[in-house]
């Protein structure tokens, strides 16, 4: 089991209501943006095949509800996450302030083995809008204070930096996986089999 190679990376997107979690996921996976997304209730996911470090891996991206009262429902799919994406809206200071609690909540619920070094990526979304309220410096400072979390400013609408951000997400998720292998995780064969048997052509949001 020590040399286990997992071909599936699980990524969780968290952040306040309406910061653009669903839009970012759809822009990345389907290269589409719509003004007509509805509020996410519960959770949906998309899958996308990516090449990282010459390896083809499937990213399973979980999109979640932003309202606080839904947070406690996430436990089931937070577990086994390889990377967590924290999103805020650069025009909504509160959504930036709440990054702290999203991060804490994730660490409590997902309980990763090494919380200090679990890979997060922060996205400041909606940079296409004029009424920006959170400065790049402020966001960068916060990220630095949290063990140097990589930070990207994105626009799901215009597709700015989305691809690059998700490349980093995939890379860091894969590294997290590699570390988990080294420490030798508890084998979970049933799961692995079903994951490895997945058809490998799927870039889609079935849900």
């Amino acid at each position, binding site marked *: 089991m020590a040399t286990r190679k997992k071909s599936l990376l699980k990524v969780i997107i968290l952040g306040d209501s309406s910061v653009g979690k669903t839009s970012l996921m759809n822009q990345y996976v389907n290269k589409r943006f719509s003004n007509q997304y509805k509020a996410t209730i519960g959770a949906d996911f998309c899958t996308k095949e990516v090449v990282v470090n010459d390896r083809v891996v499937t990213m399973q991206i979980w999109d979640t509800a932003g309202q606080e009262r839904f947070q*406690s429902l996430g436990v089931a799919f937070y577990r086994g996450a390889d990377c967590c994406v924290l999103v805020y809206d650069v025009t909504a200071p509160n959504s930036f302030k709440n990054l702290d609690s999203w991060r804490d909540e994730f660490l409590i619920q997902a309980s990763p083995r090494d919380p200090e070094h679990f890979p997060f990526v922060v996205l400041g979304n909606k940079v296409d809008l004029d009424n920006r309220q959170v400065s790049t410096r402020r966001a960068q400072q916060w990220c630095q204070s949290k063990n140097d979390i990589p930070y990207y400013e994105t626009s799901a609408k215009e597709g700015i930096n989305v691809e690059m951000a998700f490349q980093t997400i995939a890379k860091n998720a894969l590294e997290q996986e590699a570390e988990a292998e080294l420490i030798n995780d508890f084998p979970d064969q049933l799961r692995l089999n079903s994951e490895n048997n997945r058809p490998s052509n799927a870039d889609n949001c079935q849900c």
Partner: protein
Amino acid sequence: MSDVDEIKIDLPPLSFEKCPESDGERNKRIEIEKLIADNPDGSIPLKALQELALGNFGLVNDDLRRVLWPQLAGVDVTNLERVPTLDELQSHPEFHQVLLDVNRSLKRFPPGIPYEQRIALQDQLTVLILRVIKKYPNLRYYQGYHDVAVTFLLVAGEEVAFAIMEQLSTTHFSECMQETMEATQRRLMFIWPIVLFEQPELFHFLQRSSVGTLFALPWYLTWFGHSLNSYKAVVRLYDYFLASPMYTPIFVTAAILLHRANVILQEDCDMASVHCLLSKLPDDLPFEDILVNSSKLYDKYSLTVIEKKVEELIQNEKEQRKLEEERRIKYRRSVSSKSNYNVSKWFLSVLTPKSVMMTTAVSIVVGICAYYYKNQYLAAGIS
């Protein structure tokens, strides 16, 4: 934000899917119209009305629903409250969240609706929701509540919709509107005993996949309004739920799972695959059959029996989790005791400057002592 008095509009009947009336629908419509005409005050005895709403085609169309939904929901339309303005409600702490969700509810409006009319209706929707949660401060807004409210707003207009939402929020949806979603989460588990009693194989498959109940959360919170593409199917289900006891959506959910058993059992047995399959409701679900089956299930299994089983399941789950945790810890321990890698890692970690200095210091002290005692001994031997 405009004033409510300004945005008030005469609601033209909103049309979604203009499909021709089937024979069955026509007969049902004529039957209902006759019943309304026969009763001087235009109301139908409640028992008869409930049966109409439950049975095939429900209340058939929105013209009839507009008249009959208030009675079905048990609200008095002769005594409606004044509609406050949006300005009066803007200070409500949930105002922002409600606005965000209402702004993202475009898909719930008829395609092709004039822009001004849609904006006016969205303002009415915001007012409608805030009115309820302002009047009942113990009830908390949740994302999805707006999906319920918009359905009543579009069919019955803002005044009647408020009366209906008020009624439902203090009954059917009160559990969902608690401070946390804990009670709702537990309620959703009521699906499992029904599936277990009806199709054990399906139950065990779903448990093995560890899919949980998240897929059914939007169904339960919105009476399927959030998840179905067909407007006609949504209002049909609302007929059924309005005429049914609380928790009926649980039975409809179970009936859907049972109906789709064959497809589900062919899916890969992992959480993501099963969640994905279940969350997406097929457009061609035969809802009339599913509702008949749901009613049968409701009559067959008492809530007490289901609840008892749920408690058992929760207990089992807890024990299972504990066992797994113990196995995990044991496994990690056995791996680390065997692993040379870990021993060498331990050795390296022990080899810190501090430990090296300590060891050196202790060796020197021991050496001096040995030298001293040796001298003493030798001196004694000579003398």
